[in-house]
């Protein structure tokens, strides 16, 4: 019998040493390959069909857009592939392509590529990014100039043109592989294997479940100079695992770390903490049959003044700030400061709302941390704070996929949700208005508050810069007073990198531009 054990023992010894060998292979020196860990939300690498963060990060590296942003400043778009002027009532925008720029296969970028790329997104009604092109008509002026026009004034158009979904594709190559400008387009399969853009990287391999590999685009002649020739973006859904991988030097960039995790990072790791553009808010349904007592405006006020915001902020950790309104801090028209807890106002409003102690269900997605803030602890703290103020709350978490259904159909009486801009412009937050998309989800119809509706219209159709700014801040102020939403937290974006990496600039759409990463 004893001989039996020698075999078994030897077997274990062997595998242990193998593990060591395996680990030594990834020794921590600054190679020109970089690994980025993020929780994948990746369904396609066809920019025209993409509408999710990881997809934007990949498209940003593979493709270029007409306009761009400098670093993390998202207030004014700068030149990308083209420069632009607009007429005075902001309905016609003329884009002139920079000359000499080429795609990854060496062919020149022309106006035809721009017209094809934009019309393709406009034509593909089943693409989730389709709505970006609503109301915009594209006309070619000459080989290097294209004109975009809208019926109503659209100061947000330049910001739209920075969105990677409207990236400029190599039209010849895409058409050759089944690309069209309507729903019959079949280029997605091709674009899921090879990239047809002009960005600093080209697509090497992609597996939507596990990882995407980008390699340097030799023919790139833009002004980004990249330090990493091979980029691996890996799907690591657990933020905790991302942290371990980063500290174990198994990865070089961790994108979704939470505030708490960043606080306890070991030294020798850089952290780039800035408020993101997401806003986590409470939704209080205004329709009688959906919410019952919640439809009484006083109830919303009671909740608004009962909450202890600093105690909620504590859960979000580094980089996060208290939300001052529906417009996040770095955007046009954001308010200076948010609401403070006033228990007596809360008690009075609760009394006025006719609430008689019945239990209200707080619904929220429990598997979708936003900016590292997971909703479960947040909901539990809200529950206990409202309990202290006399409102009994029962929690009903559900996976994102089931919860989004009742959110979109406006059947949630009381819930936690979040809203992030689709493109970097305050126009993104007008849907919060009464009768608009998000407003309707809270049962807030236009008739209930015509004043707010007018404020929103004023912001939408402003034709000059200052007029637009005051219109947006008035809109935000009105929502803070009588809107069915209680903005809570703007979570921080905490991107952590290995010590030798710099150049991380947060962006609300594509999170960070991989091309700007440098090795110190």
């Amino acid at each position, binding site marked *: 019998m004893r001989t039996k054990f020698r075999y078994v023992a030897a077997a274990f010894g062997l595998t242990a040493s193998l593990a060591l060998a395996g*680990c030594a292979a990834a020794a921590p020196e600054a190679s020109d390959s970089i690994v980025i860990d993020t929780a994948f939300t990746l369904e396609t690498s066809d920019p025209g069909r993409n509408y999710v963060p990881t997809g934007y990060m990949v498209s940003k590296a593979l493709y270029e857009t007409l306009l761009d942003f400098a670093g993390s400043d998202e207030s004014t778009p700068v030149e990308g592939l083209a420069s632009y002027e607009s007429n005075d009532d902001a309905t016609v925008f003329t884009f002139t392509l920079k000359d000499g720029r080429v795609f990854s296969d060496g062919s020149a970028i022309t106006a035809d590529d721009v017209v094809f790329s934009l019309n393709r997104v406009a034509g593909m009604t089943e693409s989730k990014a389709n709505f970006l092109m609503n109301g915009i008509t594209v006309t070619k002026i000459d080989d290097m100039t294209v004109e975009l026009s809208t019926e109503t004034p659209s100061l947000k158009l330049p910001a739209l043109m920075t969105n990677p979904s409207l990236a400029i594709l190599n039209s010849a190559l895409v058409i050759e592989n089944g690309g069209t400008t309507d729903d019959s387009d079949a280029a997605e399969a091709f674009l899921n294997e090879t990239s047809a853009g002009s960005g600093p990287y080209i697509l090497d391999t992609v597996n939507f479940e596990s990882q995407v590999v980008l390699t340097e685009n030799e023919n790139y002649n833009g002004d980004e100079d990249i330090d990493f020739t091979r980029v691996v973006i890996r799907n690591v859904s657990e933020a905790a695992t991302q942290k371990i991988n980063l500290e174990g030097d*198994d990865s070089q960039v961790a994108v979704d770390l939470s505030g708490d995790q960043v606080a306890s990072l070991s030294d020798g790791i850089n952290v780039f903490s800035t408020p993101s553009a997401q806003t986590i808010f409470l939704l209080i349904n205004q329709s009688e049959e959906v919410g019952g007592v919640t439809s009484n405006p006083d109830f919303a006020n009671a909740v608004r003044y009962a909450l202890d915001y600093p105690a909620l902020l504590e859960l979000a950790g580094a980089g996060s700030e208290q939300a001052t309104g529906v417009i996040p801090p770095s955007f046009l028209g954001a308010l200076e400061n948010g609401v403070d807890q006033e228990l007596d106002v809360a008690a009075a409003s609760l009394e006025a709302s006719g609430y008689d102690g019945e239990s209200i269900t707080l619904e929220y997605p429990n598997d979708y941390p936003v900016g590292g803030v997971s909703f479960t602890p947040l909901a539990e703290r809200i529950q206990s704070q409202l309990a202290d103020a006399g409102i009994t709350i029962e929690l009903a978490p559900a996976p994102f996929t089931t919860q989004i259904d009742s959110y979109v159909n406006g059947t949630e009486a009381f819930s936690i949700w979040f809203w992030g801009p689709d493109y970097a412009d305050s126009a993104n937050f007008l849907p919060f208005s009464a009768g608009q998309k998000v407003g309707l989800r809270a049962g807030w119809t236009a008739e209930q508050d015509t004043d707010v509706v007018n404020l929103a219209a004023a912001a939408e159709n402003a034709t000059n810069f200052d007029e637009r700014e005051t219109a947006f801040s008035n809109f935000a102020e009105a929502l803070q007073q009588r809107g069915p939403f209680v903005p809570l937290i703007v979570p921080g974006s905490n991107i952590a990198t290995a010590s030798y990496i710099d150049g991380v600039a947060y962006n609300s759409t594509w999170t960070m531009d991989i091309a700007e990463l440098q090795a110190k």
Partner: protein
Amino acid sequence: MGNTPRATRRYSARSPLVGYLLRRLGTSVLLLFGVTIVTFALANLVPGDPIAAALGEGAASNPATVEAYIKERGLDQPLPVQYVNYISGLFQGDMGISLRTAQPVASDLSKAVPATVEIALLAIVVSLGVGVALGSLAAYRRGKISDQLVRVFSLIGLSIPTFWMALVSFNFFFLQLRIAPGSGRLSPALAPPPTVTGFYTVDALLAGQWVTFTDALAHLMLPVFVLSLFTIGLLTRFVRTSVLEVLDADYVRAGRAKGLSGPRLLFGYVLRGASLPILTIVGLAFGTLLSGTVLVEAVFAWPGLGSYAYNSATSLDLPGVMGVGLVVGVVYLTINFAVDLLYGVLDPRVRLA
């Protein structure tokens, strides 16, 4: 997680092996049909609206997109018709498009299944080796201290919550000791080997990529260790009982009377005699392993069947859930079928009735 091992499999000497296997194949196909009905029913019983989930907020409110989506996926037809489409699709290998990954479920699973089977096979081999060693030791030294120790160890093994063990071991071996590599099937700096079997270790060997092989093996260590802990507990207990029964058999005493002892008696006579019941439990252990993968893969970010099942179930991805149900059913039934086949090979009384 493991349910109690079934009574030792009774084999009927009268029906020749082929008849026996054909009948088993028949029931397996019937069962598989039942599996598709169960998963289809479950998948459609689901409260949430997967379409809104799949399209996401922005697009979901755009009626044109929703309309196109429903038409294209044929979700507007009555359920029985959808089921028939699904089954007829199956025969051409089309398992529908996953609502979550927007990829054909068949291609998703073709990547996910090998990842899980690679862990399960290695775990079974390790557990069988250790289980047989410990089980035989416990049986040989029945009643003595080593028997009691083995029993306590295997009972503890059976009591460990796999998901917790995965977390603790990942934290301890990876973060503290740094002797285990990070999560995932391969260090990200390495490209996966050219797919032949789908098993990274085997494919790397076939392609002669030594670094990839050692790295893939290193990444297998922790998940296999965690899953083996439980399986060893299961196998050791069963091997001990089977070996005990065989040790009392006349032919083993006859073997001793011939002067045979040690490994020659253990492997030649004892384990050969106990191989049939042990085979049954290995088939069963494979089932509990599949269960375990759901919990372990989430922690190790392992892109296998377990995490695919979890993601499909929680995100109400109907085709995904059905695909998983089908594949799991097929894997499960193939294993049981293989066990029957091996029964014939190992037991001449069944083969040459």
